[in-house]
């Protein structure tokens, strides 16, 4: 029993609960935003379970394929696989099983929803992690596409087709991801350099990266603003979104004009908080 508990604890770390939770929330928000007329317990729990399994599973698979890099980076060297607490083969098997069960569940809910979830895994594990992460700093764009899939899939499951609002929501996540990852790249610059991972700061410099972060945060705010407006949410939610977007943009500008590690990390945390609040607002606004 102790052994199982220990393993579960390691797998809990490996699915990156905060990141998975945030992506799960985007998927659930996408679904709720559809104001689906036929919401039943089976469909809703199927959505949560399929997202949880596929996002968690692909995160575990990423950790398997990145284990050599993780070992070189101070930030990640204590993760369960590089530290030898979990064997790579075992994690690979668990990751695959989680993805397959999640996909079966997704396809059983809706074919289109299943396709989008499958695309998310494909972009995340194969295109981003295996193919491009070690080759180009632009890999985060493809990682961003996979991150944008849960919200698009959730909305598509609710309305039955892909619409402009879903694409706008997906675009907002896609543009938010550089804010998130590039800040991380700057914060752990030496770690990434040591592991030989090309990042925006290493390729284009810190100053240009900060400009890209500022621009992408504005783009993310505009995209989610258009999505929420098209969704018909009340002006109150738009006002709050405008306020939070101004804060995000202000912080991004501060990081360009007066760069420091503290501002960078603050921007990273603010960007996460921003997305969390934007998702909660969309979900609450859709049902109220």
């Amino acid at each position, binding site marked *: 029993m102790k052994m199982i508990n220990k393993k579960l604890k390691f797998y809990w770390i490996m699915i990156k609960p905060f990141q998975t939770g945030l992506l799960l929330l985007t998927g659930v928000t996408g679904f709720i935003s559809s104001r689906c007329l036929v919401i039943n317990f089976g469909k809703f729990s199927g959505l949560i379970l399929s997202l949880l399994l596929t996002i968690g599973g692909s995160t575990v698979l990423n950790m398997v394929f990145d284990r050599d890099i993780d070992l070189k980076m101070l930030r990640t060297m204590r993760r369960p696989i590089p530290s030898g607490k979990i064997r790579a083969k075992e994690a690979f098997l668990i990751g695959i099983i989680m993805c397959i069960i999640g996909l079966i569940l997704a396809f059983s809910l809706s074919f289109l929803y299943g396709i989008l979830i499958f695309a998310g895994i494909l972009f995340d594990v194969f295109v981003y992690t295996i193919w491009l992460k070690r080759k180009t700093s632009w890999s985060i764009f493809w990682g961003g596409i996979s991150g944008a899939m849960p919200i698009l899939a959730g909305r598509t499951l609710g309305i039955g087709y892909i619409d402009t609002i879903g694409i706008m929501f997906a675009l907002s996540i896609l543009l938010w991801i550089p804010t998130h990852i590039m800040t991380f790249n700057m914060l752990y610059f030496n770690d990434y350099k040591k592991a030989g991972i090309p990042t925006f700061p290493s390729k284009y410099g810190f100053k240009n990266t900060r400009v890209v972060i500022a621009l992408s945060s504005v783009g993310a705010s505009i995209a989610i603003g258009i999505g929420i407006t098209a969704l018909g949410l009340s002006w109150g939610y738009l006002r709050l979104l405008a*306020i939070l977007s101004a*804060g995000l943009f*202000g912080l991004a500008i501060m990081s360009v004009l007066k760069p420091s590690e503290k501002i960078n990390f603050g921007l990273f945390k603010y960007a996460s908080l921003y997305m969390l609040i934007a998702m909660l607002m969309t979900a609450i606004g859709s049902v109220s």
Partner: protein
Amino acid sequence: MKKISVLDRILLFLTAFISAYYVVNGLEKYQGIVTLYFTIAFGILIITVIFLILFGFEILNEPIIVVVATFIPLTFSLGLIYKYLREYHLFYLIFSIGGFLIILLTRYLTSKKVATLALIFVHGISGVIIFLLPIFIYVKGISSFYFLFVGIGGGLISFKGILLSSLRLTNPILAQNRINSLIPKLLFLASLGFVIGLSLE
């Protein structure tokens, strides 16, 4: 410098939550320009509070934060003036723009002392308006008793501004750590006062 405590974080979170709730649900009843003024006031309050949670009290030493935070009492008082004393709105708008420009210019072009005195002056005037106008409106019988809470909120937010400004003087009103420990409480009570007062006016 004093670290931000768990209680401080809870109070700041509640401040942001109350203000955000009011921005979403409470501003529909006003005319366009009043909505804009109150949105800016509550908006800067929310962002300041989030920054405090993320960065701690050190963020208050950033000149840009001090300058932008001046918008809270200025736009709040502008909203009140427009709603209740519209004939003075243009005059007060000119004063507000001028006051803001003076704060901005003195912050970057003059000595700390002059910049601080300019800040205290503009903060003080707008704070007095937010504090006294609700009393005046209540005495006139235009609003309910609860509107006095707006005045209390105004008094508290101005007190916060003056405390922070005084840190740049040779003899601050209170020690920095003492002022920092008061900030979350003042912001929470001020936002509570504003929301109660405006909701039940």
